[in-house]
Structures are given as structure tokens and as C-alpha cells.
């Protein structure tokens, strides 16, 4: 199929009708260009939103204690719910399917110092599993471990920004040093970077929850429990969330339907909602893009129809000399595919070029960053082009194959 002769023929017919071929090719190139730019922009929107979701496992569930807003079993509204270590243990043993679980205490901002450097940082006591749930990336050292919890160790994992503001000048090594949190000495065992872009998240200090309860709280209070749902399907994850709610409502005597008594954030649910939204947007874009390409294909088909008409005599000669219908179909189809393929490729390159330009020159905003056309889009567009070319050439090719040499050769 890919012999020099056929290409020569295609080239010579294209050369004979430059403007006509250019205009046809342009409509296809425009279609592909639009498709690529639209898909790339959709991707940019998606990247922007995905960025909002960073810093936390996508299958995470966060349960925070709140205040009741519904009357239940004779109890009035406005009653605060207080989680304890018992709740943590109970969830850990009862809820099946979770792979990481942690409780948290909110101590808020506290004065932290090292030698003569001071700062106010968010102290976040938690279990070792929180490192996984929050997707904390360690730059140095380690995160909290079970021995820290068990032995009530006074150790701290500090954020990059915390390190930067406490360890300055000649004393830049933080690992192994002792920092003072609210008057108590903690040993730095790790330095982390949070995935989220939020600056406040980098200004945190994680310490073992057991130590925090003993030092700052004096009892077993917990304010938030979070876990990841492991390999559970979305439905299974929802069932886990429901079980959690009913377990807590029984333990703390509040209405399961009370949205305020405990606040549950099931991140996988949000992620699912957004991916459904973006799947919808992508589908919409493909429909528009394909519609534009169809207009181009009709143009190519039209041109090929004229080409066949003009070349009727030549096709007749070829048949008289022994050309099979198959070889005639191949000739016309190949020309159509060549025109759509080549011009479409130009559209593809221009579209990706524009996306790259926007991506490098435009500052990314909260909801739009890095518009890009990935490899699968390029492959998809290429396949689409070949199919489009084949469709464009099909009717003219069949018409060409039906040319009767007798009619074509009749001397007028």
C-alpha cells in the first residue's frame, strides 16, 4: 500500500490543485486544533481542581466531633460531643476495611522556640498512621512511630517552614536538637514537606498524641479521628462511613441524621464527584471536537468526489490496463487519508504548541493550571484522523471502483 508510486500520484494531484487541497486540509487541521486545545484546557481545569485535593489520601475519611443540632432521646440540642481514646479503639476494632487510622487533638498555635529563635506554630498531636493519611513527605529523619506513642516520648516532626524559621545562621541542623513547645522540650526526629500548597500546612509540628494528652491535656480527649478506606470500592467506603456514624451515635447518644454532632468528610466521595464532572466535561469536549472534525471530513469527502470525477478517464485507462477495483479503492482512500492525516497532524502540532505556550507563559490560578495534551490524546486524535480520512475517502473510492472503463474511455 505504501509504495512510492502511489505517493507520487497523490503528490502530483495535490500539486495540481494547491488552493483546493489547502482549504480542505485547513478545515481538518482546524477541527483537530480545536479538539486538542479544548481537551488541553479541560485538562488544565482538572489539574487546577486536582491541586485543591492534594495533601491527603484520596480514600481518606475525617470525622470531627461537633455539637448536636437535633433533639434525641430526651437530650437537648447544643450538646457538645467529645471523642476519647475509647472511640479511637472502638473504631479501630469495629470498622472493617480501613488500613490506616489516627486520632488527633487540636492544640492550636503554640509558642515554639529553639535557643533565641521564637515562632508560633500549629501543634498537631496524632498517631503514626496520620503520616500516611495526610500524605506527608519526609525530607529528613522519620515520622512518629508506635514506640513514641507507647512510651509517651517527647519527639516532634516539624515542617519545612518551621525548620527554616527556628534554625537559622550557623545552627541550621535541626535533626536531634531539642525545641521548646509551650515550655516542654521535644526532640526533632523528622522534617516534612506537605503536598498541599497551603503555607499553613508547612508550619505544623506533629507530636505523639499520647504524649500530648499527658503533657497538655491531662486526659484522654480526642477531637478528630481519620482513617483511609484501603482498597474498598466507593460503595464499600460509604458503608464504612455509615457504620462509623452509627457506632459513634450509639456511643455518644445522638441522632445518626444529625449532621452537626459529628462532621464527616469522605474525601473519596468528593473525588468521585469531581471525576464524574470532569468525565462529563471531557465527553462534551470530544463531542464538540468530533463535530468540528466531521465538518472537515465532509469537506475532504467532497473534494475527493470531485477528484474522482476529474480522474474518471484516468481510472478507466488504469482498469483497461489491468487495475483491479481494489487497487483503485486503495488509491483514492490513501489520498483521502493522506490529506486528512497530514493536515490533521499540523493541527495537532499547532494545538499542542499553543497549550505549551499557555502553560509556560500563563501563571496558574487556583482552578486552572498546566493545560496539557497528553500522549493518549495525541494517540486518540491520530486514530480519529485515520478513521476520518478513511470515512472521507470511502464513498468517493467506491464511486471510483464502479467506473466502467467503457464509459470512461468513450471519446466524446
Amino acid at each position, binding site marked *: 500500500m505504501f509504495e*512510492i508510486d502511489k505517493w507520487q500520484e497523490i503528490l502530483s494531484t495535490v500539486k495540481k490543485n494547491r488552493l483546493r487541497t489547502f482549504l480542505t486540509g485547513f478545515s481538518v487541521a482546524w477541527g483537530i486544533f480545536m479538539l486538542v486545545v479544548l481537551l488541553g484546557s479541560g485538562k488544565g481545569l482538572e489539574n487546577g481542581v486536582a491541586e485543591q485535593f492534594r495533601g491527603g489520601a484520596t480514600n481518606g475519611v475525617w470525622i470531627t466531633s461537633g455539637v448536636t443540632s437535633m433533639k434525641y432521646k430526651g437530650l437537648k440540642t447544643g450538646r457538645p460531643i467529645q471523642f476519647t481514646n475509647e472511640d479511637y479503639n472502638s473504631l479501630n476494632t469495629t470498622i472493617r476495611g480501613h488500613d490506616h487510622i489516627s486520632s488527633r487533638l487540636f492544640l492550636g498555635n503554640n509558642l515554639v522556640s529553639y535557643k533565641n529563635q521564637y515562632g508560633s506554630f500549629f501543634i498537631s498531636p496524632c498517631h503514626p498512621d496520620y503520616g500516611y493519611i495526610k500524605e506527608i513527605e519526609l525530607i529528613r529523619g522519620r515520622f512518629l512511630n508506635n514506640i513514641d506513642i507507647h512510651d509517651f516520648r517527647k519527639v516532634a516532626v516539624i515542617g519545612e517552614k518551621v525548620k527554616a524559621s527556628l534554625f537559622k545562621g550557623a545552627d541550621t541542623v535541626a535533626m536531634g536538637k531539642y525545641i521548646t513547645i509551650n515550655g516542654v522540650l521535644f526532640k526533632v526526629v523528622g522534617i516534612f514537606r506537605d503536598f498541599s500548597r497551603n503555607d499553613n500546612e508547612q508550619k505544623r509540628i506533629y507530636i505523639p498524641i499520647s504524649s500530648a494528652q499527658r503533657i497538655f491535656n491531662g486526659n484522654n480527649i480526642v477531637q478528630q479521628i481519620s482513617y483511609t478506606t484501603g482498597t474498598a470500592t466507593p460503595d464499600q467506603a460509604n458503608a464504612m462511613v455509615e457504620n462509623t456514624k452509627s457506632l459513634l451515635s450509639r456511643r455518644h447518644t445522638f441522632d445518626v441524621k444529625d449532621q452537626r454532632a459529628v462532621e464527616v468528610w469522605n474525601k473519596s466521595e468528593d473525588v468521585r464527584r469531581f471525576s464524574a464532572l470532569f468525565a462529563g466535561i471531557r465527553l462534551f469536549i470530544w463531542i464538540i471536537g468530533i463535530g468540528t472534525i466531521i465538518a472537515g471530513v465532509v469537506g475532504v469527502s467532497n473534494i475527493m468526489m470531485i477528484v474522482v470525477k476529474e480522474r474518471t478517464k484516468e481510472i478507466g485507462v488504469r482498469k483497461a*490496463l489491468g487495475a483491479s477495483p481494489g487497487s483503485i479503492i486503495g488509491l483514492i482512500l490513501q489520498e483521502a487519508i493522506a490529506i486528512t492525516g497530514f493536515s490533521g497532524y499540523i493541527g495537532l502540532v499547532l494545538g499542542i504548541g499553543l497549550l505549551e505556550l499557555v502553560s509556560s507563559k500563563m501563571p496558574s490560578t487556583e482552578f486552572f493550571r498546566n493545560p496539557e495534551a497528553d500522549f493518549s490524546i495525541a494517540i486518540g486524535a491520530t486514530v480519529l484522523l485515520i478513521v476520518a480520512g478513511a470515512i472521507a475517502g470511502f464513498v468517493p473510492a467506491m464511486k471510483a471502483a464502479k467506473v466502467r472503463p467503457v464509459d470512461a474511455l468513450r*471519446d466524446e
Partner: protein
Amino acid sequence: MINIKNIHKSYVMGQSRLHVLKGIDLEIKSGEMISVMGASGSGKSTLLNILGILDNYDTGEYSLDGTPIRKLNERKAAALRNHLLGFVFQSFNLISFKNAMENVALPLYYQKVSRKKRNIIAMEYLERMGLKEWAHHLPNELSGGQKQRIAIARALIAKPKVILADEPTGALDSVTSLEMMDILQEINRTGITMVIVTHEHDIAARTEKTIKITDGIITEIIKN
């Protein structure tokens, strides 16, 4: 070589039927050179088309080189044309964007002969026609006689058994016409059967036998 018996052919034109061939019997032996004459509309071109497997016939029998030709599919007909027949047309029918050599080589392309090999063979045939220097010229750069010689080279390249020529001198001046007949006669002497449709008496006179067709039947066979 060519054997036809009681061939009928009619064209349906809207409501009416046009009976073009009304029972043609003809036997052409291998190596014969015959001409077909007749007024326009007499059916001589239709006969040539049927002989050339370019058109079907309604009833009768036709065998070409021992092969019965009846209701062939397009592919088989194309293959038979390619291997057994060579065509020479009044208006040459060269492909305008191919040079002389490529035009001559075209039948071999459909035999799947490699590009290099078929171009070498095409050059040999062009040399035989005295057109070697014109091999890389496009048809519109050549004279009528040169074009027809290229067309003849093209008809010969697949080593056909029969050459069918439809008014081969119709578009040429008288001197060139005679040259062309010399070439065709020379080819005939190599053993290739030749059927020439013409309306010029002096062309017909150069063939062994002239068949006259009037209103779809053979009215006269003249031995020249």
C-alpha cells in the same frame, strides 16, 4: 485466438432498448491482423469493447485464448486484460502526470513487478519505439505520433497475445498514420494477433482481412 459465436448486445436507454449487436460470429486466428470497419453507430466499438472484456454481452459465446469469457467478476476481468490484451486508443489515453517511462511501465505495476525492474523493461520498449531520449518527458511535451508510440509500447510491455486498437490513427496526420501502421504490422509479424477498428480505407487495406459491420451484423469480409 478469438472465437465468438452469435453475440448479442443491447443497451437499455430509459424505456427503449437499443439492439447494437445482432448476432456476430467471428473467428480470429492466432497471429492474424484484421480490421473492423463500419459507420458510426454500427456497433464496431461495442464489439471491440466486448473483445477487450471492457463490456459484457447478453447472449452468445466468447472465448479468448481458450478461456471462456462469461460473467467474470471485475478482478478476474482486470487480470485477463492485464495478461492477454493490449489496448491502443485514438486519444492515446496516457496519464498526464506520469512521464513516458512510467506510462509504459503501468501494466507491470498491476502485475506487481518491482519499480526498478519495470522501469528497466519500460526503457527497453521505449528504445524499440525510438523514444529513449524522451523517457522522462511528460505526455504534453510530446507530439501525437510520439504519444501513440508510447501507448503502443505500453500495450506491448505485458507481452499480450492480442492487441486491440480503436482508431489508432484517428488523431494523427497521414504521414504519421502510415508510420504507425508500419509499427503495428511489425508487431503483428512477431506473432501478436491484432484487431484494428478504423474508418479509413487505406488503413484497413494494410490488414489481412477487413470485416464490415452494418447495423450490428457482419455484412462483408474482405481479404486484402
